[in-house]
């Protein structure tokens, strides 16, 4: 039995503890905003927050988040607050027209949100170190621009 809080709701599932959180979210709960990219924790498309920290859910066994507080892209706005049902990071992503295909952007937004939560004014070097997600469309210049705008806001 796996127990955790997901976007503020308690969840209890009869599931193998070694199943990665990603597949619990996607296949067991139908929460498809968190994406499968590489399966080895390298690309970051599956990034979620566990107790506010960015974590790659494709290599995080559900047993390792027992009793923890998990936020996915679907719950980010309600946790982080903001106008129009969007967190400030999500709004900045629209303002700067960041996503292209968009597949990596749930993870990118979760990574950027966690970075800004612990460091509200990251330098370029800190952005480089904090955002290691892959975007195959190359949205990096706009991700940087959006984070800079949030940092100076």
């Amino acid at each position, binding site marked *: 039995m796996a127990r955790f809080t997901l976007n503020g709701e308690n969840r209890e599932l009869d599931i193998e503890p070694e199943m990665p959180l990603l597949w619990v979210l996607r296949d067991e709960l139908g929460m498809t905003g968190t*994406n*499968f990219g590489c399966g080895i924790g390298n690309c970051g498309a599956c990034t979620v927050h566990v107790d506010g920290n960015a974590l790659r859910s494709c290599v995080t066994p559900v047993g390792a988040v027992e009793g923890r507080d998990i936020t996915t892209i679907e719950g980010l706005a309600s946790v982080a607050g903001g106008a129009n049902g969007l967190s400030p990071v999500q709004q900045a992503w629209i303002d700067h027209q960041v996503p292209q295909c*968009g597949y990596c952007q749930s993870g990118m937004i979760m990574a950027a949100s966690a970075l800004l939560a612990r460091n509200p004014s990251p330098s370029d070097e800190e952005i*480089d170190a904090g955002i290691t997600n892959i975007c195959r469309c190359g949205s990096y*210049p706009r991700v940087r621009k959006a984070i800079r705008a949030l940092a100076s806001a």
Partner: protein
Amino acid sequence: MSKTDSKPKLSRRNFLLVSAVAGGGALIGYAATRPSRHQRANDTLADGGDRFVTSWIRLRPDNRVTIYVPHAEMGQGVHTALAMMAADELDAAWELVDVEQAPATDLFANDAIVAGLGGELLPEFLTGLVNFAALPAAQIVNIQITGGSSSVRYTGENSMRVAGAAARSMLLECAAERWGVAAEECATESSHVIHSASGRSIAYGELADDAARLEPPANPVLKDRSQFNIMGRAISRRDIPPKVDGSAPYGIDAHSEDMLYAALRLAPVFGARLASVNAEAALAQRGVRKVVELEDGYAVVADNYWRAKQALELVEAEFAPTENDSVSSAVLAERFDRALAESNGSRDFESGDADAALEDAQDVFEASYRVPYLAHAAMEPMNCTVHIQGDRADLWTSTQDALGIKSRVARVAGLSEDKVTFHHSYLGGGFGRRLPFTWNVIDHATLIAQQVAKEFDAPVKTILTREEDMRQDYYRPAVHSNFKAAFDAEGLVTAWHNRFTGPIQVPGAAHIPYGIPNQSIRVVDVETHVPIASWRSVDHSQQTFFIESFIDEIAHRRGTNPYQLRMELLQDHPRHRNVLQVAAESAGYGSGLPEGRALGIAVQESFGSIAAQVAEVSIGSDGRPVVHKVTCAMDCGWVVNPDTAEAQIESGIIFGLTAALYGAITIEDGRVVQGNFPDYEMLRMADSPEIVVHLVESGNAPGGLGEPATPPVAAAVANAIYILTGQRVRELPIGDREFTLDRSLAGNI
């Protein structure tokens, strides 16, 4: 896709109407050139007060307008750009415009992209993919392909704008008739027809019913650029809001409670056949429903993808040996070099007498280049969900050609095409991997679903792991290319001699714009067992690296500044000269640079646009090149949406730079070595250069933008490295090759 609708019994009409409700929008499109579709649309789909007044455009009584776009949205902004083109000609108020993906039915086939354009206008990417002579006319017309940077150029210019203008003129006519005035006295503005003389105004929505009774004019007058209200503005993309809150559906997101998941392993050596399978251990695992054997692979089907994937590792299987089991990249490289040595190939382009010029030359300079196979590595791994129920099927997949894929699944499953329902989604990257004729995964998912359907009534989602996605791709071809240049006594370049390995996928990519009198460009086709297909910018990505490196080598050989040499040899190409000049000036070419940095330049025309790029590069303390900035001047005629255009250029540069620095798929024992991102590295934030974009409007017909920024960057970087180090990059990727600074060339930029 809940259990309650798992056995839909829908007539075409019902399907269309149901879908209209489910999608929150409407449905029908038809070409202005094919009024029969127009009639069919309104006959079958009269829905309340909504009317389709012309191709792709549906008006609603509340004066909102829905524009249907027959292209896949994969982040290139095509939904927004094409709707802007139709809406502008329609004189619609942009805030009243809704954009919908055109459904995968023949009513929405995108004939503008191929039909009636004449051979010379056929998008070049299609000529490489399809043997049109062998296709029945109906199949050519029934196409919804997205690729070749063609959407704005062909569908936008020849269909969306025409449809918008036709609808506008019909609405104008209807209003004039209603008011009893001459149409010439009326005007349109913000989704209204107005009659200034009498101060009257009527909303388009009120005229929809009247307008739908008219035949759309075949040749409506299009706006002059000075009349544009929507085109040319940096309008926010409509597909972005759902991409920031996790709600945007990708093919891989198809979901239902009863869904089954398949993990697939295909023959690691392309073309190998499955010999034996022992599935006992896999079948004993929790959630596993079935192990499916295929000709060239096997799949585990379970109630959760992770369970399927874990059980797949427990299947013991063997593949039959093939003649390619010992093929390696080294073997292939030798085969390529031997082919170039032994054959003169076939003509790609010839002018003058290159052989004679080489014989008479004062100096002959030779260089050989090579680039490896590349995978597409779209972020959304290849996947396809199929639910077969008796004689019908539902299909969910991210694709660059919805109609093509639907027809393929019907054929593989032995179903009639009209019994297959395609469910649209966004694409998590395309780059050519999701074009037609790259059927693996789609075929396999269909065959798996067919087997599953014998025992279970459930949709089956087949997903490739990243490793399978990378090892079962259709790759950008590896190419070897040999060059010779002849110089006369004055140092003028008299001959350009080029032999490269084929096949050619996009004709003309190896041709040069440079004014060299004698040219001989020939291709030697080499067969391998490695499957190949289009990869963003297709042949241009390899050929531009070769051409723009060799022209740079020629300049250095002659002791001429590489920028100056290009300008000299491009006398007949003012658009090339213009973008070169804009990029060079912006990048600070010829002026002071920070210590230890150099600029490399390259230019290429592809897909109707001309891109010049300047890369600012230094050598890091580890001997590896650091790309600080890429400046791009792009002449794409004129620009529909400047912000989307810039985004596409940024994207294209990073895609090309990723390949130049890291990209290589290599073959050992007949199979692909790389499997995941550490082995097939991607450019990330920390390596991403500053990108400066200049959109240079020449007023020519709009060019493509999805691809043209990709080709030049590899040569621009390699050319800068040469200036810094005197070391010439003739093979990609640059990889972990180390360079040593050599100041002797620093003045020669």
